[in-house]
C-alpha cells in the first residue's frame, strides 16, 4: 500500500480498459455497500416492526354446553381484541359455534348483536352484518367488508379459540397474557363471586 506512486491517473495508456474498470468497480462498490448496509437496515426495520402474525395460540373460552342456542359471550384475547362467540346451531360439534371480531372493519367501532333484526350493528356509520359476519349494509356492506372470523375448536366439551399471542412482555406476570370471557349473555352460569372473601389460610390449619 505504500508503493503505488502514480495515484491520480495512468489512464492515457489504456483509456478503454481504464474506463471499464472505473465503472465496474464503482458499481460493485455501490452494490456491496447497499447490500451490506441495506441488510442491516432491514434487520433494524424488522426489529422495530411489532407484529408477529404467526404467533397464535389456542385459548379456552367456555364449556361448550354452557352456551345454549343463540347465546353469545364476549371474549377478549390476550392482545386485547374483542370477539363475539355465539352458538348458532345444536349439531353438537364445532360447526355450531362462530367467533367474529366485535370490531367493525370500517373504522374500528364496536359492533353489537341485534337479536330482533338478526344482524350485527355498528352504531358509528350504521354498518350491518349478517349472522355469519358478512357486511350487508352501511359502509361495510358497500365495500364488501366482513367481520374477521376466528378459528374455533371443541375438545372434550371445551370450546377453544385461536387468537394472536400478546406481543407485549408483561413485567409482573406472564400468565396475565391470556384471554378471558368479559361479558356473558344472561342465563349463562357465572362461577363464583368475590374470590377472596373467605381467604383464611392460617385459620384453616389451626385445630
Amino acid at each position: 500500500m505504500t508503493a503505488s506512486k502514480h495515484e491520480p491517473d495512468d489512464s492515457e495508456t489504456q483509456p478503454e480498459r481504464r474506463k471499464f474498470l472505473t465503472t465496474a468497480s464503482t458499481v460493485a462498490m455501490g452494490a456491496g455497500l447497499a447490500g451490506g448496509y441495506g441488510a442491516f437496515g432491514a434487520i433494524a426495520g424488522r426489529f422495530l416492526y411489532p407484529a408477529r402474525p404467526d404467533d397464535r395460540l389456542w385459548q379456552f373460552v367456555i364449556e361448550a354446553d354452557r352456551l345454549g342456542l343463540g347465546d353469545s359471550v364476549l371474549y377478549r384475547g390476550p392482545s386485547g381484541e374483542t370477539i363475539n362467540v355465539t352458538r348458532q346451531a345444536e349439531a353438537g360439534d364445532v360447526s355450531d359455534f362462530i367467533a367474529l371480531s366485535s370490531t367493525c372493519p370500517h373504522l374500528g367501532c364496536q359492533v353489537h348483536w341485534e337479536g330482533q333484526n338478526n344482524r350485527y350493528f355498528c352504531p358509528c356509520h350504521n354498518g350491518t352484518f349478517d349472522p355469519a359476519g358478512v357486511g350487508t349494509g352501511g359502509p361495510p356492506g358497500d365495500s364488501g367488508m366482513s367481520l374477521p372470523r376466528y378459528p374455533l375448536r371443541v375438545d372434550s366439551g371445551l370450546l377453544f379459540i385461536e387468537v394472536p399471542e400478546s406481543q407485549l412482555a408483561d413485567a409482573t406476570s406472564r400468565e396475565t397474557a391470556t384471554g378471558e370471557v368479559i361479558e356473558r349473555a344472561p342465563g349463562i352460569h357465572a362461577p363464583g363471586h368475590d374470590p377472596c372473601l373467605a381467604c383464611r389460610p392460617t385459620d384453616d390449619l389451626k385445630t
Partner: protein
Amino acid sequence: MTLETKRFIIAALGALFLLSLVFVQWLEVTRKAEEAGLRQAHVAVPASSKSCVDCHVQTNPGIISHWEGSTHAEKGVACVECHQAASKEADAFLHYGVTIATVVTPRDCARCHVTESEQFAASHHAKAGNILASLDNFLAETVEGARLDFNPHSPTPGKAVESVNGFASAFSGCQQCHGSKVALQSTDGGMITTDDLAPDANGIPTNLDAVGQIVRDDNGRPLFHPGTWPNTGIGRLNLDGSRGSCSACHSRHDFSPRRARQPENCGKCHLGPDHPQKEIFEESKHGVAYRDLKDDMNLDATSWVLGEDYAAAPTCATCHMSGHKRNGGEITHDPGERLSWTNRPPVSLVMDTDINHAIVKVTDPEQRRALIVDTAENKRDRMKLVCSHCHTPDYVNAFYQQYDDLVILYNEKFAKPGQQIMATLASQGLRSKTQFDEEIEWTWFYLWHHEGRRARHGASMMAPDYTHWHGMFEVAERFYTELIPQAIEIVDHAAATGKGAQAREVRAVIDSILDRPEHAWFREGAEGEAEKIRKEMERRYGQGLKTGP
C-alpha cells in the same frame, strides 16, 4: 493501492457483511424455532377457574404454581374442569357457586382420558386395593396394629393421648401404596364408604340413608375420615365406585409426564425388602445406563417414543408402559400387558389371563384354552418388541431362558415344597388357622414374600446380587436352616404329645421332599461333590480348579 482496488475491496467487504447478516438471519430463525419448542407455554386460566386461581394463589401458591407448569394449564384445563361434581355425588359441595368435590377420581379423569382410564381399570394396579382383605392387611391391622382403638397405658408428656388408633399402620403404611377405601365421617361416628353408598354406574349414590348421615361442616363441605384421605394409593376405592388414583403416578397438580417417566416415581412403592424393583433396576445395566445418560433421555419431550425420541436407556415406564417405535408409539396404562410371569404369589404363575384379566389357574389344557384370552406368550412378545430396540432376538430369547430357569428353579426346589409342607401342617392341625402366631408362619412368609420375590425380580431385571445374595442364598438358608428344622420340631412335638398319626403324615411329606435328588446333598452330605466338580472342570477345560494359592 489504486482506487479501483479499494472499490473492489469495499464491494467484497460489503458482500461479506451481507453474508454475515444472512447468518444472523439464519440464527434468528433457528432461535425462534427452538424457542417455539422450548418456550414455557402460555398459561391460560380459563374463565371458569379464574376465581379459584385468584384465591388459591394466595392461600396455596404451591398448588397454582405446580398447575401453571402443567400441560393442563397450557391447554386451558384448570380447577373446575377436574374438580367439578354433580350435586348428587356423595362428596360434592357448593364452593363459591361451583359444585365440586375434593377427591378427583379416575372417573373424573376419564371425562377426557378415556383410553387411559380403561387400560388402567384393567390393570393389576387398579386392583391393588383388594389387599384390604388380605394376609398383608391382617399383618398391618392386627399383628402390627389392632382392629380397634385401645387405651394408652402410660402418659405421653406434652401430648394428651386419649386413645390409640389401631389402624395407624394400615392407614400410613399399606394404604398409601395400595389405596385406601375413601371414607366420609358418619353422624353415628363411623365411616361411610363406597360400600355404604352403593353408587350406580354414574357414581351417584343409591343409598340415600347413608348420604343423609354424612357429616358436613358449616359450609356444607363433607368431612373425610382422616385415615383414608389424604391418599394417593394406586388402588384407592373411591366414593363413586371407581378404583384407583391417577395421581399415584401423575402427581398433582402438575401431572408431569417427565416425572412419570422416571424410576423414582415408581419407587414410592416398588422398593424395600419384599419387592425392591427400583433397587434392582438401579443395580442393573439398564439403571446404570439411565443414571449416566439421563440428560440424553429427552424426558421433557411431548412425545416419548423409544427409538424415536430417545434410546439412551430404559426406565420402568419404557419397558412396562411406554410407546415404542415397533408398536407405533402406543402407550399402555396396564403394566401387566407385557409381563409373562407373575412373581407376586409364593409360586410364580404364568400370565395366561382370562376375559377379566385374571390369571387362569386350572391345569386342564382344554379348559385353559377355552378360558385364556391373552396368553403369557403374547405378553412376552410385547415385551420382546421393546427389548428388540436395543437387543438382537437371540440375545433376548436367551435372556428369557435364563429368567425362566431361575423362576422354575425357585418354584420347584423351594416354593412348591414349602407350600406343601405348610399346607400339610395346616391340614393335619399342627398349626393354627391364624397367621403369624407361629414362628414357622413368619419363616415361610419371609421365604416367599421377601426373599423369594427378590430372587425372581432380580432375575427378571438383570440384578445378579438381588438374584443371588439377597435372593436365592437367603431362600436356601431360610429353607434348610429354618423352615425344615421348624417343621421337624413341630412334628417331633406332635409325636411327643399324642398326635402320632398327624406327625407321621407331615414327616412323610418332609422326607419325600428331602429325598429328592436336588435336596439329597442336605442329608447325605456333599463330600463327593467337590471332587465331582473338579473332574468336570478337568474334562471341560483340561485342568483342575486351583485350590488355594
